[in-house]
């Protein structure tokens, strides 16, 4: 048995930089794969609705009539299913998180569909 086994570690950390970051003054660095939020390239979307069907939390609503693609940021669990399923590869996982909020945010994107008539699924 011995005492003061921790002393060396504690003394060492006195002279080290803090292990914690000064967030939010110093922003966090994201890794390439960090799943922060779903981003969409509106020009490529064809409103096929596959992402909405694949989403386990039904966070995505695709409105073909109103030409909008809507995502409920609070329902989304960042699972990346929609990104994998999108046939046009217009969805991607962006690394930064959506800012904290006190209400349920839904982001609505207008989709500029080319004017030639869409085929009904």
């Amino acid at each position: 048995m011995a005492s003061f086994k921790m002393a060396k570690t504690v003394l060492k950390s006195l002279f080290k930089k803090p292990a914690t970051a000064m967030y939010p003054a110093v922003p966090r660095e994201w890794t390439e794969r960090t799943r922060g939020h779903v981003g969409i390239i509106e020009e490529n979307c064809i409103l096929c609705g596959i992402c909405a069907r694949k989403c386990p939390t039904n966070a995505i609503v695709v409105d073909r009539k109103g030409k909008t693609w809507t995502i409920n940021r609070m329902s989304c669990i960042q699972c990346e299913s929609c990104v994998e399923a999108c046939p046009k590869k217009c969805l991607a996982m962006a690394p930064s998180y959506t800012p904290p909020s006190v209400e349920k945010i839904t982001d609505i994107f207008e989709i500029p569909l080319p004017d030639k008539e869409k085929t009904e699924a």
Partner: protein
Amino acid sequence: MGKSTIIPFGPQHPVLPEPVHLDLEIMDEKVVRAIPSIGYVHRGLEKLTETKDYNEMFYVIERICGICSFGHGWGYTLAVEGLMNVDVPDRADYLRTALHELSRIHSHLLWLGLLADGLGFESLFMHCWRLREKVLDLFEKMTGGRVIFSICKVGGLRKDITPEMQNDVLKTIKSLRNEVNSLTKVFLDDASVKNRLCGVGKLSKTEAVDLCAVGPVARGSGVNNDIRLTGIGKYLDLGFKPILEEDGDCYARCKVRILELYQSFDLIEQIMLELPQGPVDVPVKGMPPSNDFIARMEQPRGEAFYYVQGNGTKYLQRMRVRTPTNANIPAMVKTLQGCDLTDVSMLILTIDPCISCTER
């Protein structure tokens, strides 16, 4: 001899964030009897099989626990893969094993921190959690998530890791090993820590068997019931041997976990050095058939059990999970009998309770 009083412990208690409630019957500062009650955070996750298909269910299962999330996901995919007769490629199996061992490291470091906190050793607690953070960063780099990884799927893994990541893992493990060395000395040799742990809460081998203890609690009493020996993942190919201690007290349980940290370091290094090339997933065809399957998994806290029953549609008929804490509660109640009131928190901590996953 005074008369007995009942002291309520939890569900909100500073020593652990888990909502377990105990009625402690106390006589002269000794616990005569402990009556546990759980059920404060039931979430009804099993019921969700009715509305989520078997692929979506994976995300639900992963969220049973924030610490063993990878293990739960893997256990579930093992069960579904067994049901659907899917063979996972070698590379995926090795990577799953490595990721699971990384989870074990972060779980055990978390637990060691909580133990230090329970002992009142704040600086030790901070250092354990500082090291755990490195593992979480590694996870983020490899999978994209710090707590919920969503990297497993029925049929393999969703993402492969790159050679740079492989190097990162090796580097981090090397530095972790050095730093854990200095903390190990404190946990295993320091007089103040030993005073609180040695000889406290003895659980004999027969008691551990009779009460169906699992995981480090059983292994601390010398019971070898490590599920990793049953052929999940690549443990047998890696020459895995479980760590056993004979004493059955809090110190033995702590020692098992510390030695398991080193064992996980070794396993991960071995995997990263000899990782085979190849695909990480296979296409899965069809729906789960009308049959059932049981898979077992060694979580950081012990054996977990997954039951799935298919019905030919994309929804499972039934899905059941039994988590290790559920199995360890009888052993905890046993060790509490006759202990000092001051040791109660230590005894509850050393089974590493995860009540939220018990209640799913």
